[in-house]
């Protein structure tokens, strides 16, 4: 890049030139020219009390351990809600944008492999930052919004760790990516979905979205970890997709935090009402390997990052869970057909969404979450 970006508008105009060039290069030759990359954005959730306006706080927050060293970025404030973040060690330049009080985004044209590594390090090393975890149904919904044109999907799951089944009799893991256009791709998606019912978990979706006229469009991939990758002619559409996903996600978080956190509300001196209710995770089939599930899910490792203190009960297990990521607690009852999650008043809704999304990727896709009245939450 041979000029300095001095505003958010500048940055996105530059991005637009790049993604437009990338689109036509890909269209013509099916490959990108050297150092021409697609626009990648990540939405991340931050703890509410982290102030992104202070350079020192931001510099600490965006540092990470890599190969035994602490990697710090250099920062340049461009606008109140827009920073340039440069990692000299990895030669990666990203732009941080505050989306609202709870979410921020990174936008970058740098190489995917390096950017993915940075984001993964930041999320795993800082408890103040979490990814956006897009569950199967959420991604599926993205394909059909705003008359988008369906361009592909990827299924990605691995049930071996929890089920312990590595025999050739069942499909225990799968990675599949299909890009294409036309009605057949939609049919193929539906057929595969049906055929691999309860196994095919969406890891990525691809669609084309148009603006006011057919010349304005973007071709966008959304990955389940909250990564958006676009090329096309109109960068504003990329931003619109980002903001729409953020809004829908934030609504789900708000619902979880408002309706399903249990708290004793005290009015006056002793008048108490228990607000909220537990969440019921219903398995589509009986789980006979609860002990292995507990060992894999509650040992503190990525991606669940949950540490469980487990007690056997008359019909199942009672588990006190500490979320290593954000340092919150919740309790859980586990039975072969059901899991009941009791969220305390200070838990972050993202803990639940991360838990649910990762269950889909490691245990079963069709786990349904309902409230006490049977109303579907996921």
């Amino acid at each position, binding site marked *: 890049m041979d000029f300095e970006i001095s505003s958010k508008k500048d940055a996105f105009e530059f991005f637009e030139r790049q993604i437009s060039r990338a689109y036509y290069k890909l269209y013509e030759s099916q490959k990108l020219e050297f150092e021409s990359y697609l626009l990648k954005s990540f939405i991340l959730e931050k703890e509410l009390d982290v102030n992104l306006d202070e350079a020192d706080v931001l510099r600490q927050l965006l540092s990470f351990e890599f190969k035994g060293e602490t990697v710090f970025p250099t920062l340049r404030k461009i606008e109140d809600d827009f920073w340039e973040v440069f990692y000299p060690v990895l030669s990666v330049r990203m732009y941080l944008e505050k989306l609202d009080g709870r979410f921020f985004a990174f936008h970058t044209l740098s190489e995917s492999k390096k950017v993915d590594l940075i984001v993964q390090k930041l999320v795993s090393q800082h408890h103040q930052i979490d990814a956006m975890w897009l569950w199967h149904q959420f991604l599926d919904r993205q394909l059909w919004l705003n008359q988008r044109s369906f361009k592909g999907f990827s299924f990605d799951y691995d049930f071996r760790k929890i089920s312990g089944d590595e025999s050739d009799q069942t499909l225990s893991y799968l990675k599949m990516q299909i890009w294409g256009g036309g009605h057949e791709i939609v049919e193929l998606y539906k057929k595969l979905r049906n055929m691999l019912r309860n196994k095919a978990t969406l890891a990525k979706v691809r669609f084309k979205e148009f603006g006011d006229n057919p010349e304005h469009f973007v071709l966008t991939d959304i990955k389940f970890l909250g990564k958006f990758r676009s090329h096309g002619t109109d960068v504003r559409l990329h931003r619109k997709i980002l903001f729409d996903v953020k809004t829908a996600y934030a609504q789900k978080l708000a619902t979880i935090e408002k309706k399903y956190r249990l708290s004793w509300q005290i009015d006056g001196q*002793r008048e108490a009402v228990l607000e909220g209710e*537990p969440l019921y995770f219903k398995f589509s089939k009986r789980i006979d390997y609860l002990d292995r599930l507990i060992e894999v899910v509650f040992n503190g490792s990525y991606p669940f990052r949950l540490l469980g*203190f*487990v007690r056997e009960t008359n019909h199942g297990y009672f588990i006190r869970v500490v979320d*290593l990521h954000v*340092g919150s607690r919740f309790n859980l009852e586990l039975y072969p057909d*059901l899991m009941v999650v009791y969220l305390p008043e200070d838990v972050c809704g993202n803990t639940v969404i991360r838990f649910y999304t990762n269950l889909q990727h490691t245990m079963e896709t069709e786990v349904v979450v309902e409230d006490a009245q049977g109303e579907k939450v996921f």
Partner: protein
Amino acid sequence: MLKEKRSFENELLNIFIGLCKGSRQFVPQDKVSKFQKLGFSVRGVEVPIIVKGGRVTADMVMASKRVGNALVVEWTKSQLTERKKHQLRKYESITGQDLRAYAFLTIRETESVDKLVVVLQKFVSDYEAYIRQNKLPHVLLAYFYPERYRLERKFNNFVVSELNEIFDTAVEFDRIPMGFAPDIDLSNMAQSGLVDEVVAELVQLLLRRDEGEIFDLDEFVQNMLSKGFYKLLSEDKRREISKAVHQILKEIGKEPRFQEIFERIGTDPPKWKIKLRRSEKLKKIKALRKALQEFADEVAGRTTFLSLF
């Protein structure tokens, strides 16, 4: 892994909260739905009430605006003693006005008041005879513990006829909810659930705080129980829980394997300082998980937990 030894009191607390709020664990569901339709909600746990014969602490108070009724619940797993007899007589004199004064219920909620006594099946005949002889209005329910989750009305009627229908034939469940109230036996601190709660709370605190930060017993207990639930408890009960938690934290602190995580720096009030560095926190906590679980198992597995207290 040790089996969770839920206390009689904790089971009943969760059952009644679950009946009021509704819970999918109750199988079958029909009796729960009927109870829920009556509109009862929990209005207090361990509610102290001063009556003619002295002070009585109700295990739970529930009330419904919809049917204009309050339920004052006493549960006990002990046999009928002179102390219990005295307590039952004190319950008799609890009025709607007392509940408005001490449990902050409304006039509508206290149009009628039922006293509900829940006892173990094996002591039912003694309690029933005493209630009958003394013409006490208490509704007597039998609880089958610990074999199965079953409540059955044995003597006297509820004012609200629908409650009689619900409890006339036994209310029996395959499963009950376990997470509405903290797993602490409010009548006996010396049980396993409390140790598990302390261990999990300590891990949470270590994650949230940095090296050198200080925490005291009072804030530890309030966070562990959740501030709202803590407020529901009487001063005596809070003190009792704090004392037990203090003992457990002292025990943890004595163990050489946990000396690197925190140290005691004050006694009045008890205070501790966190020793874990931010950079090593996650690794150390993950490594300590097994040791902490073992500690909880050891304490819970002792022939008498009372050795701790």
